[in-house]
């Protein structure tokens, strides 16, 4: 039951503190993720929202240590709680044994484009088996049984035969189910979905989200959902982090974010989403200006140039996060006077 504040919340699975990621472009070192903190809990969905290029994907790729060669972790911590032992992901060798043992086994990942996520030359069953056999000592027959079971639970009809098919014989929605099967087959504690439905049409989108909801509810998985679709956030998220230019500008429970959006960027973002009942004559609002280049933002609030409430204070120093209300924070000088949260 979302929305009940007194509900006992699940155990923290992933704790990210002040994560910073830099990319080397030519000789320049550009800061893409500028100190991001969040946590993912059992049985909850954390939605990370923001426009293209705001650093959503880079953030989770940093946590998974899957940055491209020109990217590096410049600071911060990412703690993954494996049972009760915290594993310091930020200290592990990106492609070392330990990190590889966590990837796929403890943290599953679903990608944006199911069409390109499967290798065209292998049967889908074998591709699911690969992840399973990478992390568990099972015989082929045992693996096959598990995979058929998983396919059936994900609503793939006739799983016994479908595991023998090649990716080109699957539709987009079915491919994404296969991807979810690959991500879930090792029973990871955390599922990261990087825009899982962007490439799919709306009805399939609903089915896939329903499926992920079920995994979260029934198996108490922690889910991190990256999206720019506010409708999806409202429907599935428990906690929302709004990102802009590499920072979380606002974070809180989903109902707080939608009922009381506090940061001017969140407000603008919500106003620019079409809703049913929108008047014909009304124009959909846009955010004026355009996203600056990450290299330009050095001091102050990254949103200041596009913000209707900007003051001179916004352009200097680092803007701290303020507590708007319990568990709801916004990084904006409008809340000066409220409790500062220096660790966020």
């Amino acid at each position, binding site marked *: 039951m979302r929305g009940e504040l007194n509900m006992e919340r699940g155990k923290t699975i992933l704790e990210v503190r002040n994560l910073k990621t830099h990319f080397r472009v030519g000789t320049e070192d550009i800061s893409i993720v500028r100190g991001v903190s969040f946590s993912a809990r059992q049985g909850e969905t954390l939605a990370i929202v923001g426009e293209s290029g705001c650093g959503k994907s880079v953030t989770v790729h940093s946590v998974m240590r899957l940055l491209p060669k020109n990217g590096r972790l410049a600071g911060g911590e990412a703690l993954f709680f494996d049972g009760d032992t915290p594993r310091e992901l930020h200290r592990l060798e990106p*492609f070392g044994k330990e990190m590889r043992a966590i990837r796929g086994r403890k943290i599953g990942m679903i990608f944006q484009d199911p069409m390109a996520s*499967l290798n065209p*030359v292998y049967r889908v069953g074998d591709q699911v088996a690969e992840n399973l056999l*990478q992390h568990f000592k099972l015989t082929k027959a045992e693996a096959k049984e598990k995979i058929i079971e998983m396919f059936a639970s994900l609503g793939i009809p006739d799983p016994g035969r479908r595991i023998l098919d090649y990716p080109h014989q699957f539709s987009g929605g079915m491919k994404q189910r296969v*991807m979810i099967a690959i991500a879930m087959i090792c029973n990871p504690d955390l599922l990261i979905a990087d825009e899982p439905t962007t490439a799919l049409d709306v009805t399939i989108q609903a089915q896939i989200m329903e499926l992920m909801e079920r995994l979260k509810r029934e198996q108490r998985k922690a889910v991190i959902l990256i999206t720019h679709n506010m409708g999806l956030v409202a429907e599935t998220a428990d906690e929302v982090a709004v990102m802009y230019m590499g920072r979380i500008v606002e974070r809180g429970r989903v109902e707080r974010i939608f009922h009381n959006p506090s940061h001017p960027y969140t407000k603008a973002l919500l106003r620019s989403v079409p809703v049913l009942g929108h008047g014909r004559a009304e124009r959909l609002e846009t955010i004026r200006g355009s996203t600056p280049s990450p290299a330009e933002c050095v001091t102050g609030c990254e949103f200041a140039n596009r913000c209707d409430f900007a003051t001179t204070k916004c352009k200097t120093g680092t803007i701290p996060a303020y507590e708007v209300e319990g568990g709801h924070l916004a990084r904006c000088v409008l809340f000066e006077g409220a409790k500062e949260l220096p660790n966020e």
Partner: protein
Amino acid sequence: MAEQKKVKSSLALRSWKKLVRNKLAMIGVVVAIAMILASIFANIVTPYSPTKIDFANMTKAPSLQHLMGTDKMGRDVLAQVLYGGRVSIYVSVVGAVLGSVVGMILGGLAGWFGGKVDSILVRTSEIFLTFPNMMLVLILVAFVGQGVNNLIFIFFITGWMTPFRMVRNEFLSLREETYVEVCKAFGISDVSIMFRHILPNTISPIVVATTINIANYILQEAGLSFLGLGVPVTIPTWGNIMNAATSIDVIRNYWWLWLFPGLVISVFVLAVNFAGDGLRDVLDPKQ
């Protein structure tokens, strides 16, 4: 739902059907295989020995006894062509496959790791490519001497660059594919991603490069042996048979001594090229 429509087919079966539909490729495959089999079972196909000298039947024109006639020492030309095919095909196929395998491995390493590994390997391949090929071959022959296996070695040394460059280029684009990232995201090792996931996707250009090399080596062997630099003259190969045609006298008066081996070489090279073309279409995973 569309996905419920049962398309029961295995990739192998589908590929086979595709190959059968492609007539030219099918002809190529059938002819090439028939010629290879005829060479392997030469002792059954013809009663004559390619080396048996018969002074009673010197330079006989084609007849029912000797379908392709006999040469100046009375040896049966058909037998020579069949037994010669053994060596010629063996040399070219092994040389090409060896070159492709080494090219594939090096290309995979260069394309996957990039950076220094890539630069060193690419420069090396460029040195080999920019050196005049025939000269390189002649120098190598001078160094290692004549012989069947030496020829294979020479072909391999001078031929690994094409498959290398093809595989490297494919790797450069394929390593950016989402499914490679998916593999990484599930903790699969570099070696497994390279050779199990990316390599099968590069197979179609490799097949083409290999068949082109096979055809090329057949011709090179013929050329080298014609010049007396390939396989020692005592071993019958397609090139060595042609060697007999170095004199004007033979070309004018004994047409069967050069026409038949020449035709056999052309037909085999064509068949291999057609087969390679067809295989490329069949094996292309993107189709």
